[in-house]
């Protein structure tokens, strides 16, 4: 199958700005990640806050310039290209942002906000434009009348639907969903995830689905990638492998933290191993997870584990596995 999006050993460093000195320390958010997403598939990127998953997503959407390496779309680099060259690609790469209330301009109606996206890359008449807005709003399950509303008049779930409509109105091929359900009520999450799934089947979309909630992953994702401190720790194809087959200690830790679904499933868990202060070792020649790892060996402190294939479609970066 055709590979639609790819990253090649991508890296992003931010400079920590100190107030009084010019040069600050470097903080590496993403630290050499190579990912491939085939057309029509959806990759779930999971990690705790601060693991660099949003930065990686933004680089894959061409919104952030990598310090090293590059992101490719259809085999062409979208990093370090001019805005003019980016513009035709932009209609194929869109992003659904986490906070739907800050996506829309408060003084525009929802329709005007979506119209702006259309006008940005197409020359259309007013009538065609409003027709397109109507269609997309209906496709995300909103009445066409909502185009006349102000964003603050919509409820959280409706606004998230409008947010998805804004991203999909140009029928992009690749959509980066950055925590699309995190700010929603639990009762709404399933609805929005189902909507994302339906739209994917309808338009043949490719998703990068960023989340910290492992529960969402089986609903929308074909592949799950676990990220920790800017590195991919484990990547597993959920079509061939069950989610319970994970091997990396960090993934097991994340899985064990999911609350029970029914009271009978409550289990005793080792809360002690979940160290709160996320200490990330400075050294480049060690496993980044070793300070929190319950089965850390000497090798983990001296040598960095590389991502290796343990089964078909299942990659793990761990010495013990």
């Amino acid at each position: 199958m055709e590979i639609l999006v790819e990253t090649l050993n991508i890296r992003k460093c931010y400079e920590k700005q100190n107030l009084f000195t010019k040069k600050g320390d470097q903080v590496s958010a993403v630290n050499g990640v190579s990912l491939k997403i085939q057309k029509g598939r959806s990759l779930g990127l999971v990690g705790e806050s601060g693991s660099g998953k949003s930065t990686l997503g933004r680089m894959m959407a061409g919104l952030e310039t990598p310090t090293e390496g590059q992101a490719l779309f259809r085999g062409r680099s979208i990093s370090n290209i001019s805005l003019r060259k980016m513009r035709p690609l932009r209609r194929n790469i869109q992003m659904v942002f986490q906070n739907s209330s800050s996506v829309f301009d408060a003084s525009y109606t929802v329709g005007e906000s979506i119209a702006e996206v259309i006008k940005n890359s197409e020359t259309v008449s007013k009538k065609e434009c409003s027709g397109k807005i109507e269609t997309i709003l209906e496709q995300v399950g909103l009445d066409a009348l909502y185009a006349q509303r102000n964003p603050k008049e919509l409820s959280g779930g409706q606004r998230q639907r409008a947010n998805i409509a804004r991203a999909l109105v140009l029928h992009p091929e690749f959509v980066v969903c950055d925590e699309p359900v995190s700010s929603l009520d639990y009762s709404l999450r399933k609805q929005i995830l189902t909507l994302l799934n339906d739209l994917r089947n309808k338009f043949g979309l490719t998703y990068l689905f960023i989340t910290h909630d492992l529960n969402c992953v089986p609903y929308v994702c074909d592949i799950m990638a676990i990220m920790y401190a800017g590195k991919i720790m484990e990547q597993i194809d959920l079509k061939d492998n069950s989610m319970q087959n994970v091997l990396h200690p960090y993934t097991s830790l994340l899985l064990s933290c999911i609350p029970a679904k029914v009271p009978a499933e409550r289990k005793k868990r080792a809360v002690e191993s979940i160290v709160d202060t996320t200490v990330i070792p400075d050294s480049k020649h060690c496993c980044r997870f070793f300070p929190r790892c319950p089965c850390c060996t000497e090798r983990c402190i001296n040598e960095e584990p590389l991502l290796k294939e343990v089964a078909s479609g299942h990659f793990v970066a761990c010495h013990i596995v």
Partner: protein
Amino acid sequence: MQYKTDRRVQSENVILDIRNLSLDYIMPGQNIHAVVDLNLVARMGKITALIGESGSGKSTVALAIMGIQNRNAVISSGEIYLAGTDILSMPKKDLRSYISNHAGIIFQDPVDSLNPLLTVGEQLMETILMHEKITKKQACAIAFNQLLAVSLPQPEELMKKYPFMLSGGMCQRVTIAIASVFHPLLLIADEPTTALDVTVQAQILHQLDLMRKRDGTAILLITHDLGVVAEIADYVYIMKDGHIVESGTVDDIFCDPQHIHTRQLLAGML
């Protein structure tokens, strides 16, 4: 001083007993019935969960128990017995010290509920000195022990730090430490883990579980996350549009839900 009291409340380990509480928000042109005829009981050493979607009035209940509801909120009827005394019949001057001695509250966003201009130690000591006439040194010692009690590492260094220097999970534990300085009988946790990662959520839940087992605190857990409820709650109240639509033990609610709204909520679980 004679307040309305209730003996049954003291004998059956009931820390919080809300009876027929109705609360309206007075808005220009209309009144919103945020809470309608609500009955709720929270017992010592148990976690009582109040579940509802956003806008169902669950946080309004929490604020009313603490006596910190909005100015336009009017309690039209009902009683709130906190540790056996009806706080609604109390004069305002006694209210604040009574409630703060018997109940504590933690909010959803831990970073927002701490003062960014004060260090962690200063905030803890401020609370302690407000209540007791002791020296700063003694207050400092209490603050130190309090941080240890919520399993925060290296308390002496932590006391000198500002909230922005801590992670979300650590901030939430500091707010738990502040809310539980005087070992309140009731701790209200208003969506304590919604803003946090799953791993941090597991720790905070463990902390709450520890508090009810060690100190016998009654915990009123307000949330919309049914997973959290299945994990640690004992009793469950389901709230919709200001009404309690169903209540029962956690096993009853999850295994044999009666009300259609409860079933919908359970069906919406991931």
